[in-house]
């Protein structure tokens, strides 16, 4: 029987690779995952922030961020973002 992989173990495997983070609001982030903690606060590098507006996506580039885990709704390993 295959051993079970816990959700946070899956995220741990994503460290060093790209990840797509979707927030509860109309906001998304794509970046390289450097690390995270038990609250899924995340350290991301070379980040693109996407904010959905009526005219499309507004993007912002950020070198390194600590993203508060409180408003994260979904993580997509290897994801390339909404565009």
């Amino acid at each position, binding site marked *: 029987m295959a051993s079970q992989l816990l959700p946070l173990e899956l995220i741990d*495997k994503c*460290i*060093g690779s790209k990840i797509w983070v979707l927030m509860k*609001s109309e*906001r998304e982030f794509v970046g390289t995952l*450097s*690390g*995270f*903690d038990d609250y899924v*606060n*995340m*350290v991301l590098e070379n*980040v693109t922030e996407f904010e959905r507006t009526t005219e499309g996506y507004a993007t912002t580039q*950020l*070198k*390194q*961020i*600590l*993203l*508060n885990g*409180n*408003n994260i709704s979904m993580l997509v390993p290897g994801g390339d973002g909404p565009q």
Partner: protein
Amino acid sequence: MADTVQPKKTPSDFLGAIIGHPVLVKLNSGIIYKGVLACLDGYMNIALEQTEEYANGQLKNKYGDAFIRGNNVLYISAAE
């Protein structure tokens, strides 16, 4: 798996590295605060010095010292 090539950088490591440096703090409301990170805690409560408040990309206010309650923080970014 324990000895992966890339170094892990947990939120605590990141915060330890940026204390005393210029940072950009974005709130859930979209308002941005730029300043020097004086200190912070596990709630992401933040004390900033030489703070500049930006709304819609425009400078709105300046504060010598500012305290930001952690529940409003969307992210903390190391300023370039």
